[in-house]
């Protein structure tokens, strides 16, 4: 396990790369879902006002 994390001495570079990739994917997903929610919330507020 330690050997795996060590990555033949390149652990820092390899794991930072994979960590960044995970972060970029996660943020993309969160941002997309939040954008959708905020639009729906905005529209329903507007509709209630209109009624």
């Amino acid at each position, binding site marked *: 396990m330690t050997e795996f994390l060590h990555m*033949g001495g*390149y652990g820092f570079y*390899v794991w930072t790369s994979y960590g960044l990739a995970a972060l970029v994917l996660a943020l*993309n*997903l969160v941002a*997309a879902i939040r954008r*959708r929610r905020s639009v*729906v919330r905005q529209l*329903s507020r507007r509709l209630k006002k209109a009624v």
Partner: protein
Amino acid sequence: MWTWFHQFGSPKYFYGIAGRLVPWLGGACLVLMVAGLYLGLFVAPPDYQQGESYRIIFVHVPAAWMSMFIYVFMAGAAAVGLIWRVKLTGVIAVASAPIGASFTFLALATGSLWGKPMWGTWWVWDARLTSELILLFLYLGFMALHNSIHDPKTAWRAGAILLLVGVINIPIIHYSVEWWYTLHQPATITKIDKPSIHWSMLMPLLLMALSFQLFYFVTLLIRARAEILDRERRSSWVADLVNEA
């Protein structure tokens, strides 16, 4: 074909289809990513020259491919938007831009993290790296330009022209390693003869690339749906939909 084209271009129709596609694409994306990570980190042997450091390839190359694919996709949408005035094209481009920018950033950052141990430097101003950095600025430029114009039609027309002009950068990125002397290694897969990579390394690379591709479509569809609701807020089907929710 023509009716299909128009039906697909209709925001309401697209909204429904996209909603049904998201869970399937998302599931497939996850499966491919788990398989790719497993093969890439546990099964693929170390590289005979670069040791374990080459494993960065499994996130770096898919990110770099996506950075270019998304741009070309947006430029395609721009061409269709300018010629046929399909409403949906603007939605797709606006939803794609932040995703494309983030993949470009990821390609640059992981490239830097790979360059440091292999070349001894985080960054060089060579053709490949510089043209990829320009790609990031093209994405950011498109987003800034689009945001600065209030009317969506005018904003999309201006943005589309920027996208089409910037597409010249894509072949430059691709051929930069052949046209100029550069520190960046030449293409691994897209060579005319045999790819210079063993299948045990190629498999995880292709799996990761495919899963990144699906990830793009999933986030694109979620964002595009939000964008459609926002733009079509005055139409009755959106009102019905929001009322139900």
